[in-house]
């Protein structure tokens, strides 16, 4: 890691601008969202009417539970529901 001058360091730093805060926040919330999804799936397993509601509109079901319906969260929920 030798041969760096300040100009090169500056150029390399400029290659890594921050992503939108919302993206980072959503990724950081993944563990919590997954735990909440597990709760939602457990309820769906016990209650057929609730399951039908969830399956009919995954995004709305997540939002109703206060979980941000990012694409990966929706996909995770879909996978859990179809696996059961």
């Amino acid at each position: 890691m030798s041969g760096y001058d300040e100009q090169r360091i500056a150029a390399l730093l400029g290659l890594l601008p921050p992503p939108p805060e919302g993206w980072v926040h959503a990724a950081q919330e993944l563990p919590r969202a997954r735990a909440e999804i597990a709760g939602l799936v457990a309820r769906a397993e016990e209650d057929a009417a609730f399951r039908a509601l969830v399956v009919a509109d995954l995004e709305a079901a997540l939002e109703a539970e206060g979980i941000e319906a990012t694409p990966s969260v929706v996909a995770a929920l879909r996978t859990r529901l179809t696996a059961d």
Partner: protein
Amino acid sequence: MTEVATDAQLVSRCRRGDQAAWNELVERFSRYVYAICFQAFRLPPHDAEDVFQEVFARVYQHLERLRSDEAIRPWIAQLTRRLCIDRLRSGGREGAVDVDELEPAVLDETLANIDEALTVRACLDAVGDPCREILDRFFCRDESYKAIGEALDMPAGTIASRISRCLAKVKAELEGRS
């Protein structure tokens, strides 16, 4: 100098369910994943966001499978590249480039530069504040001396010399790691 957890330490803490460690891991690699999506593969914003979230979802889901805790960085790089290519092959959204339009040599060079940039970024984290804040605002967020001075309560006239001193510190940190 700031004490920064190694990648392996962070991964180990994440495996134990440490939310703060997960937050730090996402923070540490978020710029890297973002740069690969945008600069290397030129994904449109919506595709980039989908890939960004999918990368971290898979990292979280498969953390247990990682053979070595130190391997998190190349694993994230490989995962991001694969998901970007999959996205482009599946057609992507409006504005996405054709995957065959990406010149392999240019792509490799961009990815190598991004990888090098992450190493420099790690050195900046080790140098710590106020250098981290000053250099980040100037080079990564494109803020003016005036804006930086106001945000950090420093005379704007001193920002240029601080930037110069901070770059020298990052350089020394890089050389110390060689």
